């Protein structure tokens, strides 16, 4: 009996020595947060990130009620500037505070624009938010098609032919992965204990980030199987924050940032 215990102890020590890095070094570490001029509103996908074409600066857009706060950080770390874009309403008299539902940088073939969606419609600005290019008004409210709002934060990634899948984050805290070609369900993850508010995917590596009202940010790895598979890589709880936005800042997933409701920071995590 004693021999067995002794052998058991040696094996444990060997195991620890061999797997030290996996056990004790976290996949990501947190970095200095960037302050925002206004807190983040409770919305889905409340964080958009843009790396400017010349790769000179990283820009972060976070919605605060009827305003989008933009922080631009030069990639050489030299400067940080703040701007804000106010949601303009088509009518002259504002009866109610216009509420922005989402702000997102969208890159289309020849340019990048900043799209604001509000209760009154969609507004499209220059990517730096300086000029309103176009707006599409909602018009009369008619009875909507039944739309189950339990899907949020879908992400689509394509890496050649092999990574084509759709990841959906759901209100019951589950992530579901589908094959984009066949629509087949590949995986269901009991990921979070509350509503999932945002997802992002790193196209080069198939890493997925998910955030939730449960305070957790979790990182997953998509696997190039058919149907696609997924595994858990990392998680961190940002104390007492209902997380509302998440974006990778690197196409390989080497860094990501998150925002929380009622909080004025953009929190960063960098791979170790």
């Amino acid at each position, binding site marked *: 009996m004693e021999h067995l215990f002794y052998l058991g102890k040696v094996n444990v020590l060997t195991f620890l020595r061999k797997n030290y890095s996996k056990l004790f070094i976290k996949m990501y570490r947190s970095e200095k947060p960037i302050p925002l001029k206004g807190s983040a509103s409770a919305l889905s996908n409340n964080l958009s990130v843009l790396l400017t074409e010349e790769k000179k600066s990283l820009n972060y857009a976070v919605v605060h009620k009827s305003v989008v706060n933009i922080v631009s950080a030069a990639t050489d770390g030299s400067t940080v500037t703040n701007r804000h874009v106010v949601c303009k309403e088509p009518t002259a008299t*504002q009866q109610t505070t216009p509420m922005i539902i989402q702000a997102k940088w969208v890159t289309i073939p020849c340019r990048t624009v900043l799209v604001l969606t509000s209760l009154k419609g969609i507004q499209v600005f220059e990517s730096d938010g300086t000029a309103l290019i176009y707006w599409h008004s909602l018009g009369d409210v008619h009875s909507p098609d039944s739309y189950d709002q339990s899907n949020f934060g879908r992400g689509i990634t394509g890496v050649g032919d092999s990574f084509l899948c759709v990841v959906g984050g759901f209100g019951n805290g589950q992530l579901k992965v589908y094959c984009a070609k066949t629509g087949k369900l590949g995986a269901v993850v009991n990921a979070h204990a509350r509503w999932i508010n945002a997802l992002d995917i790193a196209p080069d590596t198939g890493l997925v980030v998910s955030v939730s009202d449960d305070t957790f940010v979790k990182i997953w790895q998509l696997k190039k199987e058919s149907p696609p598979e997924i595994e858990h890589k990392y998680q961190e709880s940002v104390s007492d924050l209902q997380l509302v936005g998440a974006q990778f800042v690197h196409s390989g997933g080497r860094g990501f940032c998150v925002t929380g409701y*009622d909080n004025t920071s953009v929190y960063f995590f960098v791979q170790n």
Partner: protein
Amino acid sequence: MCKKSIDSIFINFLKMSFKTLPLLFINLGGEMVYILDQRLRAQNIPDEKSKKVLHDIIATMFHKRFMEELFKPQPLYSKRAMRTVFDRLAHASIMKLNAASMDKLYDLMTMAFKYQVSLSLRPKDIILITLNHMDSIKQFVEGVPNIRQQVDYVYRLIIETYGSMTAGEFHLIRQTLLNFFQDMHIRVSIFLKDKVQNNNGRFVLPTSGPVPWGSEVPGLIRLFDGKEKARKQFPSGGSYLPCLAEGSFDMKGDRVTKLGTNMYSTSRSVETVGNRAVKSTPQTSDVESNVPDPLAKAQLDLLSSLIGSKTTNVKPEIRLNLFKTDEEEEQAAAAIQPVEMAESKVVKIDASKVF
């Protein structure tokens, strides 16, 4: 995504944010009743007078015409308009509050409901919280059949309006409520004592306890290929338990959640901590405080006429104090401007004078 489905998403969002006002009003009103009840007892106000105050306020709150207007689809009132509504309501009887006590009352009400919405396990639980408030209000007016009837009517309005909403619709309502409470971080002593609020005014969000009804405990990955082909576990990061019961959405029943029940008793006092000036200055974009709200004004006028008809000849007999002593109340009162008078400028509070 085609234009039509984009429109329907926004329309749904708009529709849901237009159905949020009754929930905001009823829950804030419910908290107000709890706080007033506690203070009336703490100040040893005689029973029949206390009862009269609460009955008058509840009867006004649940006035049929006012409730019918409230339940019509409309955006939330501005913060200022909401504050004015409750100011009027608090004075619907023989009780009066000075400006400092009214401020404190409103701060406590809003932080309590903010806490309940933040801690709700799933968005639909906000209806259970509302029903908890309704259940308590019903108890306060036990023995007054005409007010009971008014309360029962509102139960029916709630069940009709929210009974068949989807999870997604409740989620949008929850977001609308959270955004109404954004940037409010007043510290409440009962919350600090119970360690549900931090010293920076943020609520503690536990990573343990039951998961919402309809959710699974995190930690399982299931892989499929037609049917389930494999299972993997991963550490959930918290210590969660399955949810054992849903809670009743009927007129009577076990709501299961304790959120929305009366957390005050004679021994647990009603206090905020520190001064109101500890609030970040609102961004210039926060137009609500400056733009007049015609819809709200119409309802305020209606409310005024309802209250006015009851209290024109009534002299206030009770002066309620939300502070520990009259002195404290005076100090707090010296430092603020009444909300209704500060029309077009942001109310500035001199932090050096506030207690």
